[in-house]
């Protein structure tokens, strides 16, 4: 089970703040591909993924129990 958070444009696109994926393990790239397929217009090329509140690389592996977040381009400040 992998938990994912959606924020800002992605929260509005998906219509949800978070959901749980029933997988034991996947790479960040696989997570992005999954999201793009499930939510057309997701825009995975512009989105970073955080695993347990830390930015991850596309080849990093997500394990069951991890909390992930899709991070679209930030605009704080």
């Amino acid at each position, binding site marked *: 089970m992998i938990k994912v958070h959606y924020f800002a444009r992605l929260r509005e696109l998906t219509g949800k703040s978070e959901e749980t994926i029933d997988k034991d393990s996947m790479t960040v790239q696989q997570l992005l591909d999954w999201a793009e397929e499930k939510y057309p217009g997701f825009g995975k090329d512009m989105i970073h993924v955080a695993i347990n509140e830390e930015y991850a690389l596309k080849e990093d592996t997500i394990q069951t129990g991890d909390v992930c*977040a899709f991070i679209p381009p930030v605009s704080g400040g």
Partner: protein
Amino acid sequence: MKPFEIVEGPIDIQKYADYVLHASAGAVTIFTGNVREWTHGVRTLYLSYEAYVPMAEKKMAEIGAEMEEKWPGIKVAIVHRIGELHISDIAVLIAVSSPHRQAAYAANEYAIERIKEVVPIWKKEIWEDGEEWIGAQKKYPTKGRKLND
């Protein structure tokens, strides 16, 4: 208060100025990013900020640690507000104290640049004729403006 925090209400400048001040501080710089009504001729009605709160506070604390390493002797507080913000409201505040003024200015300006790069906070601008999440992505070139660019 926490020295690196996301808040949902108004930001009190004095509180953060007091936090960074101490007997060895000869200079304090405070930066506030405020909601501006007009940007390139477009009128903003209000902004809506959203954050990944625990990660945002962690990233702000990391920026503070970077700053204290680059400018030894400084003391830092960073706060960002989320929710609905209106004209002139403070969205972000950075307070830096230092024995000497040069570090207080340089470190403060470094902080806002880093915040805009790495802290997971998002801004939606609401205009009279529409709204849009602001970000650096190529999909938003025509309206992709930033608060304090």
